[in-house]
């Protein structure tokens, strides 16, 4: 078992969630309730990582984050090191390829809140902050949980993009999925089997949690 790789994968997944959850709540509400010109284009762009081959995404990220790019040079000047083949570079890649997994379930959940409920809350004089916590998040939490679980599991499992922009550096960019690939090439079938089983268990648990939450909500809805 490559504990460094497991730790790195969990760290990457947690960091991805930390950025995407607030961003997803904001964007999800915006897309659910507002109309604006070009909305379809924005939605299409956010869904793109669902259908784009990871190698295509990886290629563009390599170009966009490389030492010759604006972003790469800006980061180099700011942080004093390269963005590509670093953990920070992986995090950027992870944020981009997880956008649809984080935003779409939340958008659907916010869309399901009846407009009467939101208007009633506003008429009662609740502040926007209070409405967000007491009404919107309270009603949309299954969608938010589902988004969190999907994003987390998807980050642990991502392979193609990480292989292209990561470079398999131990303790920096060698995630669990990459480590499995490396162990197979090192003829270490036992090591690969242990790590594969761990990823399988984590993924299964994640999906089960999200289904469980959804079932509970549906049961409540039926009893109401």
């Amino acid at each position, binding site marked *: 078992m490559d504990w460094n790789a497991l730790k790195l994968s969990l760290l990457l997944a947690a960091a991805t969630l930390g950025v995407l959850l607030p961003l997803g709540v904001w964007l999800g509400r915006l897309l659910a309730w507002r109309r604006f010109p070009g909305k379809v284009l924005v939605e299409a762009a956010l869904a793109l990582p669902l259908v784009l081959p990871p190698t295509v995404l990886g290629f563009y990220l390599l170009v966009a984050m*490389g030492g010759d790019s604006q972003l*790469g040079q800006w980061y180099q000047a700011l942080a004093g090191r390269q963005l590509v083949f*670093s953990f920070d570079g992986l995090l950027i890649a992870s944020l981009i390829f997880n956008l649809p997994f984080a935003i779409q379930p939340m958008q659907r959940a916010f869309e399901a809140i009846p407009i009467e409920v939101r208007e009633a809350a506003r008429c009662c004089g609740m502040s926007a902050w209070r409405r967000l916590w007491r009404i919107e998040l309270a009603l949309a939490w299954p969608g938010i949980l589902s988004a969190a679980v999907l994003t987390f599991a998807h980050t642990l499992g991502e392979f193609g993009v990480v292989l292209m922009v990561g470079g*398999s550096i*131990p*303790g*920096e960019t060698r995630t669990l999925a990459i480590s499995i690939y490396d162990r197979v090439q090192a*003829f*270490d*079938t036992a090591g690969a089997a242990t790590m594969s089983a761990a990823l399988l268990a984590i993924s299964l648990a994640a999906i089960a949690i999200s289904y469980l939450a959804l079932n509970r909500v549906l049961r409540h809805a039926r009893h109401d």
Partner: protein
Amino acid sequence: MGMKPVQARGPVVAAAADLQFALPELAAAFQQETGHEVRLAFGSSGNFARQIEQGAPFELFLSADQALVERLARAELTVDDGQLYGEGRLALFVAASSGIAVDSDLSGLAAAVKAGQVRRFAIPNPAHAPYGQRAEELLRAKGLWEALEPRLVLGENAAQAAQFALSGSVDAGISAWSLARAPGLTPEAKVVLLPADDHAPLRQRMVLLKSAGPVARRFHDWLLGSESRAVLARYGFDLPAQP
């Protein structure tokens, strides 16, 4: 399952996949002797050269082919032209389950090809893996390339090609001789060293990159020493004359 604590971060060494088994042994011996850890990444030399050009933070690059080191030196990414540390050799790998006769002049393979017994044949990807380029040269020299080309399975690097052949996923393959000493390799797998006359030599050159720190430099020098040479020889590398 060994618990491995997270150490202070040692320099990252990019190594050709033919060093998959020799280099971890060397790095462990180096750490025992000096107390310094080095982090190892294995892959195809061509891929690493590209990643170094794109700014990958490697401090030392052990290439399976010196042309790639020369390319990086011309781009002024290295501290010098590098050092020769060994010469790699090709080997024929045949799965234990396969009936192909194993011999160093590939006549058993030629007979099996003729008889239609070779459905899938693995080599490292010649587009970026030096062992794949040499395997192609050898197969062309033996007149087997045309027959085998439609049956090729390309490994990402030498280790993957060897793994394909030894796991029985393909009938046979050509890859690095240094991988034949893999720990955990099944004893019934058939591997034979191939003569070096029919392909350009696989001159293994290593080079320190511009970012190399003291530990990477020390490891580089240590790899040229007699203890390392003994290990490399044991894994089947031909050694350059002692400097």
